[in-house]
């Protein structure tokens, strides 16, 4: 734009730099704190200059909180949630958009309503379901036949328990639905004319076309899965299935122990890195997915 606005330009740069300090400043504090010694990190005033002990502190944090297992579990959990969501949502959206059956509206509303209640407000009964998965089946059998059967199957301390309830929401379905609705009607018509069935149409045309959507959904779902806190906390009692978010507690300096925050910060930096890398590297897709799932 051709307009001379020196004052407004200076203000704009000022705002952007202030925003940088506000939003990126904490990262700088974390990184420099994580690279200092125990004395330096507790010094007043705090020094923003990074030192050379970053990897040493990370190593200490890694062994203190047993981050090896936790990182692996978080990675498995985030990947399973991602794959589950990306795959199931594509299928469901296909069923909702491309078929004309009486069940269509029913499916749509059934999935749609799940947008309303996030896991946090129904966490208590969802936990109860995961702890006793066959309760509905048992109730059904005893109601129909009158017999009390005792089959027991719980999802506590398993990857299935960590991931399945998180997959059971509709965010991804709507991303695909919006995209399918933008495709021209002629596409499916042409496919049918050429003798393709529904399954063939789905595999050979829809899936390749929705590649960008899948990538966008993948990035947001990975971050979502990695950052889960409350659900793993409830589902897991066995240290073998601990996720990174749960090991944050182990990283915290104890009340009466040495306040070695340098190790704590190094540990939380390790935990923050994977989603940070995903967002930084795939930012275009991440932003697209974010905007598309909400609107």
């Amino acid at each position, binding site marked *: 734009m051709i*307009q001379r*606005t020196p004052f407004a*330009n200076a*203000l704009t740069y000022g*705002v*952007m730099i202030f*925003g*940088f300090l506000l939003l*990126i400043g904490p990262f700088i*504090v*974390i990184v420099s*704190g994580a690279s200092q010694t125990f004395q330096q990190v507790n*010094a007043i005033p*705090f020094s923003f200059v990074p030192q050379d002990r970053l990897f040493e502190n990370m190593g200490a944090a890694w062994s203190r909180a047993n981050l090896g297992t936790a990182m692996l579990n978080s990675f498995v959990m985030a990947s399973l949630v991602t794959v589950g969501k990306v795959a*199931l949502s594509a*299928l*469901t959206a296909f069923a909702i958009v*491309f*078929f004309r*059956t009486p*069940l*269509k509206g029913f*499916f749509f509303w*059934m999935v749609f309503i799940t947008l309303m*209640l*996030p*896991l*946090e*407000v*129904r*966490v*208590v*009964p969802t936990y*109860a*379901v995961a702890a006793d*998965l066959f309760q509905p089946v048992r109730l059904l059998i005893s109601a129909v036949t009158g017999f009390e059967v005792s089959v027991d199957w719980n999802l506590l301390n398993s990857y299935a328990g960590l991931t*399945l309830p998180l*997959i*059971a929401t509709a965010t991804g379905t709507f991303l695909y639905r919006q995209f399918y609705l933008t495709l021209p009607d*002629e596409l*499916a*018509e042409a496919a049918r004319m050429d003798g393709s*069935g*529904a399954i063939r149409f789905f595999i050979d045309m829809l899936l390749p076309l929705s590649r960008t959507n899948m990538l966008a959904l993948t990035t947001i779902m990975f971050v979502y899965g990695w*950052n*889960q*806190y*409350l659900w793993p906390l409830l589902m897991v009692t066995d240290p073998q299935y601990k996720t990174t*978010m749960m090991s*944050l507690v182990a990283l915290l300096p104890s009340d009466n122990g040495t*306040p070695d*925050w340098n190790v704590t910060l190094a540990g*939380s930096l390790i935990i*923050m890195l994977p*989603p*940070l890398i995903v*967002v*930084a590297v795939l930012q275009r897709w991440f932003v697209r997915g*974010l*905007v598309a799932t909400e609107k």
Partner: protein
Amino acid sequence: MDKRAAFRSWWLPSLFALPQIILILLFFYWPAVAVLRWAFTLEPPFGGAAEFVGFANFQEVFADPLYWNSVGVSLAFALCGTLATIFIGLVLALAVDRQLPGSAPFRFLYILPYAIAGPAAGMAFRFILSPERGLMASVNATFPDFWNPAKYGSHALLLVIVVFAWKWAGYTFIFLLAGLQSVPRSLIEAAAMDGCGPIRRAVDIQIPLLAPTLFFLLVIMMTEGFVGADTYGIVARTTDGGPNHGTDVMVYRIVEEAFRGLNYSGASAQSLVLIGLIMTFTFIQFRFIERQVHYK
């Protein structure tokens, strides 16, 4: 919203939708029914069938001053957090949208905090804004007890709001920047021709045209503040609901009540109240989105 050329089959779509429908039935609808059942019943202390007690659980919840405390804390948290995130996001989006040379990296950087999980951010901020070390220690050295979230509830509440705002400012920034980019360039140029400076253009043209996005973000962020996954994580890892229930938000209280106090009925009654609240928010949002589509 129907597609013209649809495939005709009833079993195929059912088969395709089946996996997700099963998951939703099992992990969504069944628990939703359980919340209802628990909210109106009480389990006898020594086992046996649950007893129907009508609205007694709700009466008990509403009679508890700590519950009303958590409502107030949640309200303050969601309201302040929402306004702060939207304000920061708006100012930054307006600045970046001017596309001055060198503004591209900022646009990339502002989104990064959104990648961080609430609990991890909370842990980091426990250090960054700790009264004894980090950034606030030197202030406290000059003015003793100026900042102490471990002691004062209001400071702790401010701390969790700061963590929330830090994480979510990048999110509102994305949406507001997208909104700004859809403001017709010709309008801005016409205003510039008439001698409007950038600030005047922002206040008189860009912000009014952003109204739909701002309203949408208001609803989304309020919902997030009340029941968001991060809200629980931030509070749990930053302040543990304390000191003296100063940051005891509604979600935190529900989980505490259910899993530490083992009071499923009370927790379910509280959940139902919260669900009612979210439904109101969602209703408002969809009314609004519908209107937005009409006006396009």
